[in-house]
């Protein structure tokens, strides 16, 4: 099978124009990105497009999507998703989210369970689990983050993050081109609006997970040190029809480290009927 092309479209929403990446054919699956704002060139998308019509919107404030100044929390995020789904003409479909995107998918699924046929939460944020805090994403150095995001520190993105650290240590980062850090600043600013405090969680979410009706797959990267294992375990326990799957030898950014394997797991889960 040849690699599917992923196109970038602009969709006008109530909040303004947002970027949507779309490719492949078959049943639709929506992919909600993490706080890293991954989407452009994301290897997972063509892998998913081998099986599905993959639809990956950039949330307002990430990439080229506008309207973040009108988003003040997860409630606004859910309303935005409802609007976007309608404008894309999407009926009930599979929804997948990584980390921040997993949290967002869970917020949508607790409020509008009928919109989702299959739910896939990969290393999801969104819960507070005593004694298992999600590590800080706002104030640590790129090198420190890379250790949590990648099992393989030689992954090109991990290597780039270590390089950034060197430039920051030497001369306060003055030598880093502004254009290079701009997307990162934008992504973190948008994420802060959703999850600065309470930190990357909604205290009400856990008590609402019982409302989710879609069969749910929780994907846990065994080497993810950003979102500790009890978060995945809690989701899998509290969502009525959920199951936990472990992926060894990968960390938080499984979508970059093991895109083909992850796409196969997702395809198999959705094919289960």
């Amino acid at each position, binding site marked *: 099978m040849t690699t599917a092309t992923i196109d970038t479209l602009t969709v006008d929403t109530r909040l303004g124009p947002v970027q949507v990446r779309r490719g492949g054919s078959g049943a639709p699956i929506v992919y909600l990105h993490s706080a890293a704002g991954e989407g452009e060139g994301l290897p997972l998308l063509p892998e998913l497009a081998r099986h599905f019509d993959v639809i990956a919107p950039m949330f307002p404030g990430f990439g080229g999507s506008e309207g973040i100044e009108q988003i003040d929390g997860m409630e606004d995020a859910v309303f935005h998703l409802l609007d976007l789904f309608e404008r894309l003409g999407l009926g009930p479909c599979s929804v997948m989210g990584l980390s921040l995107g997993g949290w967002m998918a869970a917020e949508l699924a607790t409020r509008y369970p009928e919109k989702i046929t299959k739910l896939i939460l990969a290393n999801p944020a969104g819960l507070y689990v005593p004694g298992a805090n999600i590590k800080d994403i*706002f*104030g640590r150095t790129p090198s420190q983050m890379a250790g949590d995001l990648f099992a393989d520190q030689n992954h090109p993105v991990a290597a780039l993050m270590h390089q950034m650290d060197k430039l920051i240590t030497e*001369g*306060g*980062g*003055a*030598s880093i081109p*502004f254009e290079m850090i*701009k997307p990162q*600043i*934008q992504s*973190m*600013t948008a*994420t*802060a*609006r959703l999850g*600065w*405090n309470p*930190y990357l969680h909604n205290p009400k979410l856990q008590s609402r997970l019982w409302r989710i009706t879609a069969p749910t797959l929780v994907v846990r990267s065994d080497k993810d040190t950003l979102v500790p294992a009890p978060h995945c375990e809690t989701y899998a326990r509290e969502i009525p029809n959920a199951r936990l799957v472990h992926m060894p030898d990968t960390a938080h950014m499984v979508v970059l480290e093991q895109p083909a394997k992850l796409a196969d797991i997702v395809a198999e889960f959705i094919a289960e009927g």
Partner: protein
Amino acid sequence: MRIFNFHLMPYTGLPPDYEGPSWVTCPNELYDAELGSKLYNRYLDELVYSEELGFDGVCVNEHHQNSYGIMPSPNLMAAILARQTKRVKIAIVGNALPLYNPPTRVAEEFAMIDNISNGRLIAGFVVGGGPEYYSFSINPAYARERFYEAHDIIIKAWTEPGPTEYMGKHYQLRFLNTWPRPTQKPHPEVWIPGVGSLETMDFVAKHRYAYMGIPYFHIDVFERTFNQFREACERQGYTMDPMQAGWLTPIYVAETDEKARQQYEEHFWYFVKRLLPGINISPPGYTTLRSIENIMKGIGSFVSSVKTWDEVEDGNYAIVGSPATVLEKLERNLERLGTGNLLGLFQLGTLPAAETKNSLELFASEVMPKLRARFGGAEPALAGSKEGA
């Protein structure tokens, strides 16, 4: 011109083997309350003494959860100073408005201090340092919005008859009716400190407040910042009054240049290497993209990047030397920057009481009169109001 003694009230007792940050997560087990008791009283004495020495004013500021400055409530310090001084201006530079909920608290406390001091308060408003947003878990993405709303509430409380109301995005106050009201009419002079955020400059220029340049940068960065502020005033259709600008800088005077450096240098490095680490943390959304770009132009010139004393001297990160040297450097830089307010940090890092006192005295007797002779010595009145300026 006006000359102020600005105190940070640093903690001097960090153990020699502590190498962590001074901000947010500096373990509070390292704090010794007995030492703290001595420091607070000594630092207040230094500020009170500045009045006797002829300073125009004293400055205090607000930071939380750090060893850089143990002054989470500058209003408490200002309240003491309001009673223990009779003449000097008391500048609170300032209250971090987004940290007060509701911000009417600031309107109340500032009015109290203005009453007690009989109209000597300078009201400083700040967004708060980046670390504060970690220390208080306040969302930095709303720092500016909250700052502007809080500002509007305080000015409204001071200038409009109550009871009235304020309905904003972040604050909804059904009964805005602050007691007491300030002595100075329509309200105290307002100062806003900044590190180069363009939005802040536009805001200060629009309201005809005064802009205080934050220290620890190369003098070239100050020059660029004040030029940008001057341009912001021009965009509002007027020329900046020098009293609308203040330069904050560490100053140390001793009998000779050699003695000054020899007495001062280790305390300066304690400040740079022990008390500054962590200050530059910039949480997301705290600064707009265009301002980050502006501030980053100067980041390589921040004092933390400085390695040698020669660089300190060349960049004017601190003004240190004999009275003649200090006078010459201050004159040159004040001329260059065009600021009508000089805010001297006369105590810095671990600089002991005796050295601080000697430096203050030498400055007051040998430098201050000559600065006044050159730049104008009377204590000028700057209207704090939109109408008055």
